[in-house]
Each structure stands twice: as structure tokens, then as C-alpha cells.
């Protein structure tokens, strides 16, 4: 630990302290200050810690949370950037929070959610360290920012190029993600995946990878889960899915808050439960299990941890607004939203209302056209079967009207629509109904709306 980095930590802590006195959130500015004072601060602070970076389009936060849950349950200490502060400044700040005033970080692991475009800025400092990188999947996401899905893949490759020693944990079912294993010189690769098809409630409408990344022939599938994920192969060039060493061999039941699966760990089969809601979360649980194997945990301990996973901020977070309560669900892109639709199609009843919220700030994506890639038609079919007299669909956010149009064209009854852009008024309305409500919100709606919820109910605190 150099004097320079210790000084930087102190300056960072002072900045954070000042911001807190001023009543401002402090996830990124301390990082800016520290990087200015000591560009390699991250490498200095992480040098005695095992680092796990999680990147990819969907499931980063949940996967990080699951990994941290698993490591903590096994007696390891972790630091992590929980609030989704997943760019370089946020990562530096979370190391600062864990550091003593003299700049020492006493943790076994750092579990870091890394934005795909920021991965390279983060891994730049990790050369020579013990680093594992998990890539959850690659889907179309914020096209106004990334351009297209291959750009995302290239960004991740750039991040990996700084850390040739990396242990890779890749989604075998994503043809884009798994191509990272071949295009990079890495030898240490572990795959996770699902060895069967998901049920009919999962979506496979829009695919972000129809044609082979190597030869541009059309992929075929032995089985599919959702989106372009599945047991793919290319007849023309032979590029195909790698058999995963950590896998869901069979899915026995999808419950409201969990899934029962037959889990494969390095050739051994176990009955297991992943206590996260939604089919898509099976992948996040499997990714955590794969990291558990990398960390050398016993199979029994991995399985025990999978049974005690908890949902992170805004991911099916239950809030006691009234007796029935409400669930906050974050949506960021079509693939994630479609899995939420699958969940709602399986579980929404006539006694549930739904609030949809959409902003077009840069963190949400300034282009809102992606809501047309979401299969609201499927949910509409379910609602037609279960609807009740009192059921309402609420809309909010800067582009709430766009969502109203989308649902109208999906076949929803517009007489049940309620548009309310003022969060406080909306919360009063929702409180008055007393009905259980799923709240499906884009990123900055989630942040703003949750803050206002915090004025009327006790919320779990997350670092900001």
C-alpha cells in the first residue's frame, strides 16, 4: 500500500463524508477524486483480494447478489457495489467504503458488477491479480448507446484483454457470450447453462443472434430457453454450444419465488432449489453456482446457498405499502422485460394490478422503441382469462404514454388504464386501492419512485 493510494483513500472518504453532510448520494464522485490522485488505486486496493467481475446485458445485479450471498454463507467476507454503481467510479468508491483510513481492505472477495462498456476501465488495474469474470449473456440493450449487440461483445473482449490470467465463467447457451472462449487466449473457462427447454411461457420471439457469429449461417437448436439462448449449433461451420459443467439438467417446477431443478455439478446430479423468482433467474443462480465451484466450495454448500438466495434492490423487491404489499420489478431491455412478462403471465391473477413506468433518460435508454419488442400480447391473453372488475393498469414516467399505446395495440382494455406522472399522487392512488400491485419500472423510474415510496414506508437501505 503506497502513500499515494492511502492519501487517495482519505481524500475519497472526505469527499463522501462531505457529500453525506450535504445530503447527496455518494457513489461516484469519491471515485473520481481518488482516480485523479492515484490512477492505479483499484489495483492497489485489490492486490490481496480475490476479484469476481460480473458483466453482460441481463442479470448482473442478481448474479452478483447471489455470488455474495453464497460466499458470505460460506464464511468469506465480501465487498460489492450493490446499488448498480457499475462503472469505474462506482467500483472505486465501493473499495473505498471497505478500506480503513490507512487504505487497507480486509476482505476475502470483491464481487463487482461491471457495466459492459466500463469493464475495460476496471480490469485495466487487475493485471496479475486473482480475477474471475462472469459473463451472464448478451442481448440487445440501449441501442442508442451501444449501437448493436456485437459492439457489446467487442467491449467485453477489450476488458478481458487486460487480464490474460482470468478465470472465465460463461453462459454456454448464449452463442455470443460463449464465443468469448474461442476468440480469447484464455484456457481457464467454465460454462454454465440449461440442458432442457423452458416451458411455453418463456419467450423466444425476438432473437438477437439468428445467424452464426463465425460464418453467418442460420443457427439450429436442440432446445431453447428464451431469446436466442439454448442448445445452438451451426450446421455449416460446426460452431456449437459447449457442454456446461454447471447446469440445470431438468426443471421440475417454476414456483412464484423459486424453481426446483436437477442440478449438474461437474458430472454429479443433485436435486436443488434456486430461491429466485422467474425462469431467467435460473441462469443467475447457475452462474453463482459456477463461481462457487471456481472458489472451491463443496457441492453441498453450493446447493445450500442456492436455497437461501435473496433478491436485490428493485428485483422483485417486496414493499409493504399496504396489507397486500407491492413488488418492484426493474426492466432495462426487451430480453429482461420478456422474462418479466413470462413471470406475470404465469402468476398474475385478477386480484393483481400492474404499474408500468418508463423514462427515457440515458440510464433507461433514450430510445423507447424497445417496448415494442416486449410480448405484451402474451400477458394480455392471460389477463383476458383472469381479469376482474376492479383490475387497473397504471402508467407513469416521462414516456408513460408510449407504454399506454403499446398495451392498447397488444389488446389491453384501455378503460382500465390510469396515467399518473406524479409519483406522490400515484402512491396515494395505489395505497387507496389496497390491491397487490406488480410495479414494472425502467431504471430511473425505479430510483425516483422508490425514493418517494421511502417517504411513506420503511425501505431496506441500499448504498447510493
Amino acid at each position, binding site marked *: 500500500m503506497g502513500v499515494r493510494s492511502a492519501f487517495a483513500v482519505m481524500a475519497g472518504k472526505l469527499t463522501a463524508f462531505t457529500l453525506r453532510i450535504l445530503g447527496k448520494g455518494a457513489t461516484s464522485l469519491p471515485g473520481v477524486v481518488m482516480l485523479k490522485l492515484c490512477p492505479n488505486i483499484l489495483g492497489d486496493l485489490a492486490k490481496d483480494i480475490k476479484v469476481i467481475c460480473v458483466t453482460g446485458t441481463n442479470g448482473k445485479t442478481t448474479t452478483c447478489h447471489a455470488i455474495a450471498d453464497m460466499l458470505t454463507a460460506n464464511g468469506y467476507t465480501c465487498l460489492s457495489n450493490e446499488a448498480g454503481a457499475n462503472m469505474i467510479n462506482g467500483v472505486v468508491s465501493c473499495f473505498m467504503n471497505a478500506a480503513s483510513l490507512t487504505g487497507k481492505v480486509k476482505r476475502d472477495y470483491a464481487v463487482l458488477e461491471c457495466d459492459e462498456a466500463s469493464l475495460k476501465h476496471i480490469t485495466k488495474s487487475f493485471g496479475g491479480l486473482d480475477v474471475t469474470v462472469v459473463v451472464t449473456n448478451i442481448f440487445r440493450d440501449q*441501442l442508442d448507446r451501444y449501437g448493436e449487440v456485437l459492439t457489446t461483445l467487442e467491449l467485453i473482449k477489450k476488458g478481458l484483454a487486460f487480464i490474460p490470467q482470468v478465470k472465465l465463467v460463461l453462459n454456454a447457451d448464449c452463442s455470443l457470450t460463449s464465443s468469448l472462449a474461442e476468440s480469447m487466449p484464455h484456457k481457464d473457462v467454465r460454462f454454465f447453462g440449461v440442458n432442457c427447454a423452458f416451458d411455453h411461457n418463456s419467450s423466444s420471439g425476438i432473437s438477437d443472434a439468428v445467424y452464426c457469429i463465425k460464418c453467418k449461417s442460420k443457427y439450429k437448436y436442440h432446445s431453447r430457453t428464451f431469446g436466442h439462448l439454448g442448445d445452438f449449433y451451426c450446421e455449416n461451420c460446426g460452431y456449437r454450444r459447449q457442454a456446461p459443467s454447471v447446469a440445470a439438467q431438468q426443471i421440475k417446477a417454476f414456483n412464484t419465488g423459486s424453481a426446483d431443478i436437477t442440478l449438474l455439478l461437474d458430472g454429479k446430479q443433485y436435486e436443488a432449489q434456486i430461491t429466485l423468482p422467474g425462469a431467467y433467474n435460473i441462469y443467475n443462480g447457475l452462474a453463482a453456482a459456477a463461481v462457487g465451484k471456481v472458489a472451491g466450495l463443496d457441492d453441498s454448500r453450493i446447493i445450500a446457498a442456492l436455497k437461501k438466495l435473496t433478491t436485490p434492490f428493485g428485483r422483485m423487491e417486496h414493499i409493504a405499502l399496504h396489507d397486500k404489499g407491492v413488488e418492484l420489478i426493474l426492466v432495462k431491455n426487451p430480453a429482461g422485460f420478456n422474462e418479466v412478462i413470462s413471470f406475470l403471465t404465469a402468476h398474475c391473477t385478477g386480484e393483481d394490478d400492474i404499474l408500468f413506468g418508463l423514462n427515457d433518460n440515458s440510464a433507461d435508454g433514450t430510445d423507447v*422503441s424497445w417496448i415494442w419488442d416486449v410480448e405484451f400480447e402474451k400477458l394480455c391473453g392471460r389477463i383476458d382469462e383472469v381479469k376482474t372488475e376492479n383490475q387497473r393498469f397504471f402508467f407513469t414516467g416521462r414516456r408513460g404514454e408510449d407504454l399506454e399505446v403499446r398495451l392498447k395495440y397488444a389488446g389491453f382494455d384501455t378503460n382500465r388504464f390510469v396515467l399518473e406522472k406524479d409519483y406522490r399522487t400515484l402512491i396515494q392512488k395505489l395505497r387507496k386501492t389496497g390491491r397487490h400491485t406488480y410495479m414494472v419500472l425502467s431504471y430511473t423510474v425505479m430510483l425516483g419512485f422508490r425514493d418517494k415510496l421511502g417517504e411513506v414506508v420503511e425501505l431496506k437501505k441500499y448504498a447510493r
Partner: protein
Amino acid sequence: MDTIRICHLYNDILNLYGDTGNVVSMKKRLEWRGFGAEVTELSFGKFDTNTKFDIIFIGGGQDFEQGILTEDLFKYKADWLTGQIENDTTVLAICGGYQMLGNYYITDKGENIEFLGAVDFYTKASSPRMIGNIVYRTELNGGHNVAAFENHSGKTYLGKGVKPLGKVVKGFGNNGEDGTEGARYRNVFATYGHGPLLPKNPAFCDSILLSALKTHGVNDLSELDDRIENAALKNALDLYG
């Protein structure tokens, strides 16, 4: 009443920006008025070129697939599509689909990629990408400006016989230079506006439908309750107009 046949060309590739929403919008607005609407998804490979369509829709896609797409276009679809355009079939083409109808595309390396040549214009790669909300004026949207979103790196320059679809109010449009947006030729409506375009510009959607319904002897459309669509349009224009 008649059934209107809509062809969604290269639906599995050119669907990057919620473009399917345009097809949904056309279909629903026909059905709400009692017309039939039949959507045919036409992707790679051979097909029966005698099939008649009233509307051909082409959306936008990624650069990655462009190579295989132009290969298929010239192998199976070029003569047919040019013929359809010359026979006054209604065509709505957006972004990548728009560029494809032109004469050629000049890449950033200066290479010329031959395109369909059905409409007289060309496109030239440029940097940085033109990304953001776009508002443009056109007589096709019932007196309202059009609100949409654009995301393209190509700059398009129209030939002499081709009129722009509209005039840029906010945003870049064809090339960010001459204030033009999109192209009009026979019954071709081409634009960089996605978002998708038609759902929250309902009068524009009806203009496209009327263009196709003429051959069915239909010259006006009954009113629909467009309060939700118009509220979304007004909101977007208030934010970005």
C-alpha cells in the same frame, strides 16, 4: 370488406428498433375498421414472386447481417421488389430498409456497395452516428409534426426526381445538412424515423393505409378513438419538438 395483405420483408433480421410495431399498428387500424389484414413474413430464400401484396414493410437492422442480406436481396428479391415499386405497391421502408432501396452505399473505407436502385438516392457512411429524437414536418400526419427516433451512421442524399418525405424540425434527418428527411417516390414512403414510427403517429399510419386502399376503391377511412395515440404524440412533441 377486403383483406389487405401486408408483407413484412426480412422480418427476422430487420427488426432492431421495435419495427414490428409498425406492422402491428397497420394491422390493428385496418381490423378496427372492419378490414381483414393478413401479415406475411418473408425472409431469406426463394418464394412465389406472383404473390400479391398491398403493403410491403421493410425495417432496420444491424450492420452484421447486412452482407448476407444484400446477397439474398440480389439473388431472390431485387427484380420482384423493383417491379412492385414500379407497379405502385405501397412500400414503407425505415432506416436500413430505406437505405437498401437506394442506388448504392459508400462505406467508411470508400467502397461502393450496390443497393437495389429502385429509388434514386445514395447513402454515405459517416461518423459519429446520428442518434436521438427527431421531429419532422410532413403533410402525411394529419397536420401534426411527426415524432420519432433516429439512429443511423449513413447520410442519405436524394436524387433529382425524388422528393423528401418531410422537413426536419429537430434532429438530423437524411444527412443533417439539407434539412430533408426521408424519401417519397410513387407509393414508397421511406424514413429514418423509428420509435416505432406509426403507433404514435396514427394519422401517418392512416395515410399509408389509404395509399394501399386506393386500389381497393377505398378513398377515406372512418375515425378511430385515437386519444391514447395522440396523447403519446403530444407528449413526445412537447418533450422534443
